């Protein structure tokens, strides 16, 4: 059994970590490098940086932040937002990222996934999926921070992306994002049951119960933001509680 990973998700806008609710009403949380260093020191397993405004400018502005992070953070780092070409990805990897998360770029042109996987290996291509539940109960893939809908069914899209060579899924429930009201286990279970690659889940984590539930629903990793940013939990405590419940996770 692979160890479950606990990931800190940092949404970045204009050099600040921000957090909203359902991607709206972004509040400034702090400096990305200070926060990631704090989470690293507390024992986070991985960090995901998302440029929340990248789509507006059609480019990722996080490279300098990642470059600085490599000074004192020695765990895997994933970067997403605004990556549209293999060259964009190369620049992000040179800046020190180990993986990239792609959403809009892949929805527009799924072959981008294959191009990145061929150039750098599928282990470094993460498909970011923003899932929103429709009235009929079907989940639809969104982009641009949950504002634009793609018309694609989440499960179909994920299966298609696996064929194109994606190595990992980063699933966010748009409905739950930032709400700290509990995770959408139905969504997590559906996605995890439909693919054989690791699934990172996020959106709505309120407590260790949620993380435990997500793991039981099949998640390989849980990405958390609000409960860390607002100081509701520290990482040592979360991991300790998870281990007490029998979850295999790095101390």
């Amino acid at each position, binding site marked *: 059994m692979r160890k479950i990973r606990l990931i800190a998700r940092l949404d970045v806008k204009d050099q600040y970590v921000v957090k909203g609710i359902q991607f709206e009403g972004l509040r400034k949380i702090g400096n990305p490098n200070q926060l990631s260093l704090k989470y690293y020191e507390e024992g986070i*397993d991985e960090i995901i940086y998302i440029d929340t405004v990248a789509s507006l400018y059609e480019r990722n502005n996080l490279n300098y932040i990642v470059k600085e992070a490599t000074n004192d953070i*020695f765990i*895997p780092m994933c970067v997403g937002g605004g990556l549209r070409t293999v060259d964009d990805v190369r620049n992000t990897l*040179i*800046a020190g990222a*180990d993986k990239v998360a792609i959403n809009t770029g892949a929805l527009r042109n799924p072959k981008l996934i294959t191009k990145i996987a061929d150039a750098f*290996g599928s282990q470094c291509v993460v498909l970011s999926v923003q899932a929103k539940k429709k009235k009929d109960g079907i989940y639809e893939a969104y982009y641009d921070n949950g504002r634009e809908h793609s018309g694609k069914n989440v499960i179909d899209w994920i299966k298609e992306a696996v064929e194109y060579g994606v*190595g990992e899924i980063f699933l966010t429930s748009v409905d739950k994002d930032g709400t700290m009201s509990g995770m959408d286990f139905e969504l997590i279970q559906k996605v995890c049951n439909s693919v054989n690659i690791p699934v990172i889940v996020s959106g709505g984590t309120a407590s260790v119960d949620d993380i435990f539930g997500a793991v039981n629903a099949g998640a390989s990793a849980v990405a958390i933001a609000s409960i860390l940013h607002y100081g509701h939990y520290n990482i040592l405590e979360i991991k300790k509680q998870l281990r007490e419940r029998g979850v295999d996770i*790095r101390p």
Partner: protein
Amino acid sequence: MNKITIIDYGLSNLLSVVRAFDMFADDVIVTNDFRKVGMASKIVLPGVGAFESGMKGIIKYGLDEILIKCKEKQVPILGICLGMQMLFDKSFENGEYEGLGLISGTVEKLPYNTLYGERQNVPQIGWSTLEFLMMGRYGSNKLLEGIIPGDDVYFVHSYECKPYSQSDVIAYTCYGGRKVCAIAGYENIYGCQFHPEKSGKTGLKIIKNFCLL
């Protein structure tokens, strides 16, 4: 003066490796110049990617002969991930390719099935524990000082090193119920299958130990 020479043969992102060694070495140089490598007091051979293209890079810069000479001069060499695999005699990645032959053994694909017959993911990506026998203050090797069995490190690999001699396995990890060589060592030559520069404090200890050899 503790000087580390990191070999850049064009394949990998070296930033994190350089930063990690910068923490413990007085001087870190990154080079593909075989003359500089020939004068090095400690060498790091990093690498991400395919074996064949890695060896091509090494040979293109004339580094293969220099590395063999460095071994004879007892210069410590640490290979990381693909860099570790290239230390071995040969690899079966997409064919059969000769390596540097600094440690005896082969490089073979991780099995798609666990020991119990279930499917498993290849590549192995993620945190996994280092296992070794504790002997006194550390395992059988100085590279393990301060590390205890069960400490986690971060792996990303599809191929594994199989040293001919079990005594060259300094630490292993378990994947799908099988032992996979995590750290290999023969005389002054060492290899880590995982990424010490991405393995948090445990990884940094190993990097520090290498710097202090």
